[in-house]
């Protein structure tokens, strides 16, 4: 059966981080060639949309930019975030059944607090889209499946305290690849414990391993979570030919995943084998999402014999899945234990590195748990970098459902903090009022 698919294709042919950077003008050139040559844009059930521009207020629903988010981005970022929003609108307005925002620049390494660009990302285009959906369509429960080879640490950061967002990321093990996070013990802060799911995979994992995880773990998580909407962060660098990673997934593996997942909205993330992988993976995903036959989408250089998964990897993955199944089954009990242990306050200190700008950030997050509401949290940040020098900020984040008492307490704490003057900038991100207020 066919489904109408909305396609927001925006290759940003005039945008690059630097001319020879993997995120350069050429990145989606061969994908454009393949899509056009296949004739996909003439299929009546595939409707191409022109991306709109996202507004700064759309970005500030998610991000706190230092000193402002506007100063850190280019127009291209507004187009790619706007492209994701365009895709989401098309689905929610029921013009199409599903949509694929095949756009760049990508976003899944961008965290809530932004000092610059890290992992090729400045703003998190999925999160901007999701918060837009929550604001404009009243969507509550969102599941994100991140199929990029790199851990989606930005998306994880943004939703780490949100029990209504299930973030599932499978990726090459952080011990062997940027950004070095995404281990199975990163599970969310106590109030949202178990809604962050990391599945670190050994290099060399093939389609078999990936689909074993999907069939035996992810499918059940999605069923249990009962999301209103499923988002796929459709990174494509698990491909066997990707120059930045070491996995062994094929275009068929990706297309079958898209077919099984049937995400409402897919958003492109990474993927840097721009000639040998992206043209085929993207055609595969488009066909699978449109409910069309993708079985003939095969890389011309594919040699399946070279892509067999070692028994060591297979048993490692089986163990990982067993482990996760147990956590998932007991997640409610374990969550209560975490909440109990926290005694109302959960604190995390960490360092965050911005590879593109050479910025080192020290961050402290404090989550204030409340028995009546999702509570609130604060982020204190200090960063150093060659272009920014030293900059610091303190922000308090109120959820749309924070209770009056939490709201009062949060604001008091923020103004007390401002009085000390320890930080250069102070922010209140208030989801209920839908504003980012600079104090």
């Amino acid at each position, binding site marked *: 059966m066919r489904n109408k698919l909305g396609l927001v294709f925006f290759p940003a042919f005039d945008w690059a981080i630097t001319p020879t950077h993997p995120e350069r003008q050429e990145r989606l050139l061969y994908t454009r060639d393949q899509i056009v040559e296949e004739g996909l844009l003439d299929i009546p059930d595939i409707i191409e949309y022109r991306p709109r521009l996202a507004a700064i207020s759309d970005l500030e629903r998610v991000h706190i930019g230092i000193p402002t988010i506007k100063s850190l981005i280019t127009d291209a970022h507004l187009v790619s975030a706007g492209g994701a929003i365009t895709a989401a609108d098309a689905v929610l307005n029921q013009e199409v059944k599903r949509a694929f925002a095949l756009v760049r620049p990508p976003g899944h390494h961008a965290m809530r607090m932004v000092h610059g660009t890290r992992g090729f990302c400045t703003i998190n285009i999925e999160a901007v889209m999701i918060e837009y959906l929550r604001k404009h369509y009243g969507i509550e429960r969102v599941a994100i499946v991140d199929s990029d080879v790199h851990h989606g640490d930005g998306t994880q950061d943004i939703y780490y305290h949100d029990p209504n967002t299930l973030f599932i990321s499978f990726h090459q093990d952080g011990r062997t690849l940027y950004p070095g996070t995404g281990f199975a013990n990163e599970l969310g802060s106590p109030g949202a414990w178990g809604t962050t799911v990391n599945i670190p995979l050994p290099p060399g994992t093939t389609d078999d391993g990936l689909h074993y995880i999907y069939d035996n773990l992810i499918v059940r998580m999605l069923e249990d979570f009962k999301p209103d909407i499923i988002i796929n962060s459709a990174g494509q660098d698990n491909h066997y030919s990707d120059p930045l990673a070491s996995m062994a997934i094929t275009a068929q593996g990706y297309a079958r995943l898209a077919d099984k997942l049937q995400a409402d909205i897919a958003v492109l993330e990474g993927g840097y084998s721009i000639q040998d992988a992206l043209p085929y993976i993207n055609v595969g995903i488009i066909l699978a999402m449109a409910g069309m036959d993708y079985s003939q*989408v095969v890389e011309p250089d594919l040699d399946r014999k070279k892509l067999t998964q070692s028994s060591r990897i297979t048993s490692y993955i089986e163990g990982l899945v067993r482990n996760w199944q147990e956590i998932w089954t007991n997640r409610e009990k374990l969550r209560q234990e975490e909440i109990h242990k926290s005694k109302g306050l959960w604190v995390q200190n960490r360092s965050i590195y911005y590879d593109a700008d050479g910025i080192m950030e020290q961050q402290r997050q404090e989550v204030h748990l409340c028995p009546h509401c999702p509570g609130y949290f604060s982020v204190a940040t200090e960063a150093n970098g060659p272009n920014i020098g030293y900059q610091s900020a303190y922000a308090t984040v109120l959820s749309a459902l924070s209770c009056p008492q939490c709201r009062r307490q949060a604001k008091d704490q923020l103004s007390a903090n401002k009085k000390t003057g320890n930080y250069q900038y102070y922010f209140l991100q208030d989801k209920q009022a839908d504003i980012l207020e600079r104090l």
Partner: protein
Amino acid sequence: MLLGIDVGGTFTDAVVIQGQQIIVQAKVPTSHDNLLEGLLLALDEILRTVKAGQLERVVLSTTLVTNALVQNEIDDVGLIIIPGPGMNVSAMFPKTPITVNGYIDHRGRRAGVLDTQEITKCKQLAEYSIFAVSGKFSVRNPLLEQEVFNMLNDAYHPLHVSLGSQISGRLNFVRRTNSAYFNAAVWHKFNMFAEAITQALAQRDIVAPVYILKADGGTVPLILAKAQPVEAVFTGPAASVLGIMALHHSCGDVISLDIGGTTTDIALWQDGVPLFAERGANIFSYPTAVRAFWLKSVGVGGDSFVRRQNGNLQIGPMRLGPAMALGGENPTVTDALIVAGKANFGHKQLAELAMKRVANTGQSPVDAADEVLASVCRIIVGAINDMITEHISQPVYKVEDIINAVKFDPQLVVGVGGAVKGLAPLVAKEMGIDSFIPTGSMVANAVGAAVARPTIDITLRADTEQGYYSIPELGLRKSISGARFSLASARELAFDCLAAKAQEINIPQTDMEIMYEEEFNVVKEFYTSGKIILCRVQLKSGVLMPVLGKEVW
């Protein structure tokens, strides 16, 4: 003197233009069984005033190809495709294809070997004398198509083989395949026609070069059209757009209407230039690579049948006969125009009778006529607005093009066609802009044909990393020496090739223009290793000169 002949659905028109004036015109009924008869009738009428030797150029716009397709008077074509991996295309063409293994990838590299056995062993192929061959990415490298072509020639000695890469230099395998198929299907019919017209002109001592009008409004020498007859599909609307261009110097953004008996063709003009269908025209429901003006056809015109159903007015799309005012049996839009005082012919009483038939209880014939015309306007304006929305929301692939988005701000409705006089001003009024109906609009199509510019277009793609460039329309693939080849060199080379081609087919080499270009660095392991450059150039289309719209009866 320039002669233009337009074989339309109802009439065949001929005009001779000299010094921007129509000096002779002729109109005869189109002879549907044999288009040539009516065409020659019109020609002979012209030749009563003008000497054959005075004609400098003859341009024909005919429905021959369209009719052949609509009436299914086409040849059975052996369709051979080389799709390689990708979308399942087996059910996407007008004809079930024979699939051959082999693959050229997006860089034009041979990525899968041609399976020749399927061609030599396939018994089915022996039944055909005409073939179409199309391979994915053949515009990047026509090698596999050419190998199949050679094999077919050796094994079956066919009359004709259409190759996808020569029909269009642009990406889109499905469109090229459909184009090649339709091209092959009408090849024989068109060539018979070309033969007959050549003879008939010779008999009349006409030695002027003969051109055929294409769907994109350009003309090509008959000899070239014989190889690519599919481009002569849908020339009627193209002639109409050119006629408007010749009769009215448009500048700014314009909406043009050709309001005929049962349909209204709408075109948008940006900065005085008609917009093209970006990817190509559809033939039936099949997308093709045939370049054409971007037109929307709505099913309302002067003869559209008007009736009231469940209290609601219904207009068209069918025609049941002429207006009641002209002796027809059913109410039409023309009857409404007459009653509303927007047209002045036929029997007014009969037109009033027609409006009484569609009037609500208590509604006067004049009010009913106004209601009919308001409905017609709504349909046309609705279609215009849809087109404008579609145009300004065309996907674009650069940030710059999002930030500086194209705007369309129409200032004028220009109309031609039978029912235009009454309707175009109403449409313009509804949109709050002016309207203009050029005189001579009744023979606009023939005028358009007479003064249409000869055009050809080519696509040059250079891949300096692999060290070659190709121009598929010319069947060309040549080496280049890498380092210094730039976009500027690509342009220069493309213009040279275009000029050489123009010279070869004996058309003027003036007014070359760039239609599209792009340039990308190819980066390998953080070093720029070459460039990919695309440059599409053409001999500018449009009209040779403006024509004063003074009819000469």
